[in-house]
């Protein structure tokens, strides 16, 4: 299982200059709108996977963007990765909101970071009979992952964050993030029968 390693030695951004963030800091409303537009869908998507409550996610997002604008004078001009910055802020806000709400204590939601699977059209025509079984197996494999594994995979691959950023957001060591993700992928490989893998990889 080498996936962790393959990405471990990834490209590390050591400096970057981008006009968008700078314009935003100078109070450019268009830049603010651009940032909102560019990230709102991903932030909402993450928020919903995190707590499955639309209104709560929307409230946190509203606060997040309001605070972002009103505190822009105090923000670092060197925010290299806006998406990371926003995601980690959203996660903190959601956690804070959930902790206040007693109903949510100790609730381990299996819906969090849930996968969906659809087979490509061409395959559906070819192998119709086995398809239900295949899907069931895949679903079983995917849902056997823990919430933490799913969240780490989600942040790393869906939101494209670097491993150290995922670690920072989830308050984990970078090494444990590698382990979590490679274990999850190893688990999938083990659970999926060869024909299914071949079906996935074939064509």
């Amino acid at each position, binding site marked *: 299982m080498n996936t962790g390693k393959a990405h471990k030695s990834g490209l590390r951004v050591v*400096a*970057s*200059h981008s*006009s968008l963030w700078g314009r935003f800091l100078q109070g450019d409303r268009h830049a603010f709108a651009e940032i909102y537009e560019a990230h*709102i869908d991903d932030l909402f998507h993450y928020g919903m996977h995190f707590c499955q409550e639309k209104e709560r996610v929307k409230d946190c997002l509203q606060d997040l963007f309001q605070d972002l604008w009103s505190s822009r004078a105090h923000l670092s001009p060197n925010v290299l990765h806006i998406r990371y910055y926003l995601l980690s802020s959203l996660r903190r806000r959601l956690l804070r909101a959930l902790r206040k709400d007693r109903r949510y204590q100790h609730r381990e939601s299996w*819906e969090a970071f849930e996968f969906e*699977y659809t087979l490509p059209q061409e395959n559906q025509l070819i192998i119709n009979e086995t398809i239900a079984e295949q899907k069931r197996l895949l679903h079983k494999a*995917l849902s056997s992952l823990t919430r933490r594994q799913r969240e780490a*995979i989600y942040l790393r691959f869906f939101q494209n964050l670097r491993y150290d950023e995922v670690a920072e957001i989830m308050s984990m060591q970078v090494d444990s993030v590698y382990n979590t993700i490679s274990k999850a*992928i190893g688990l999938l490989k083990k659970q999926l029968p060869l024909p299914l893998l071949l079906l996935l990889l074939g064509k």
Partner: protein
Amino acid sequence: MDEDFQDWVLHPGQQNLFWETWLQQHPEKESIVNDARQLVQGIRFRAFSLTAADKEQLWEAVWNGLEETAPTAPVTISRWKHAWKYAAVLLLGIALGAAWWGIQAARRGQTILSTYTRLGETKAVQLPDGSIVTLNADSRLLYAVSGNAREVWLDGEAFFQVKHTANAQQFVVHTYDNLNVEVLGTQFNVNSKGKNIVVVLQQGSILLNITAPRQEKAAALYLRPGEMLTYNRTDGDYSKRSVAADTYTSWHTGRLTMDDYTLHDAAAFMQQVFGKKLIVSDTTLYNDKVSGSMPIIYNPDTMMTQLGKVFRMQFNQRGDEVWIHKK
């Protein structure tokens, strides 16, 4: 997996020349890429999305909440601009695709990484070997280690600070033309933005390999510090001359060095970095020259104001075009 690759997988209709070209040069990778593509398309995270109305409402709520501090009218955003993008980006598949791709690459002892910059943006990245590559705006870089060579593919402009490795591993920069740069440890700039590919060596020594389809133009030549090679990508002609290397490389430290700098040069700069087209009403203005240096500000408006001052001219922007008049 990196965004570029996802994007290419998810939007096959949109030509991503970078990946297509790369694939053409590496036909053996095709099955891996197809595998990844298959997976990427199959598995995804459950979709949650805000409707356009929700998004707008939320945006208004943000501004209403700010009203006391910011009494002016909010900026409106377009509803549809990015909709198609997000509709498609709902995937984990990436994870498995990436994993599989990664596994395959690892099996072959390879690491493949990539990064890119947009207009108005530069980025310095550190490669796993410790080398630092500064990408200028609107450029793409792919990095692979295979066996005993470190290889990068560059589309755009980059300044390389290549680290010499203990086992003297070769470092090769490929352009998407018949020009490769081979080095061990050194600092140089490669720009493949215009009709010429321009390589400028700041420090160390590099070997340029030109592999022309027609044998007589094929060549291998060394560059010494302060020398520049200009390679014409259309006809494969090339020439070498001595230059003040700093003029070509200082952008990576955030400065624009102007040495007999003309409006023509400024136009090329604005086009390359911000995608702005400079239009001059009176072409004789093109010959005005200035010398000196100034910081590069990654904001097209500020940069234009600065350049206007330097050239003592009026810069008026209309969309992506900039009209220049004598003051």
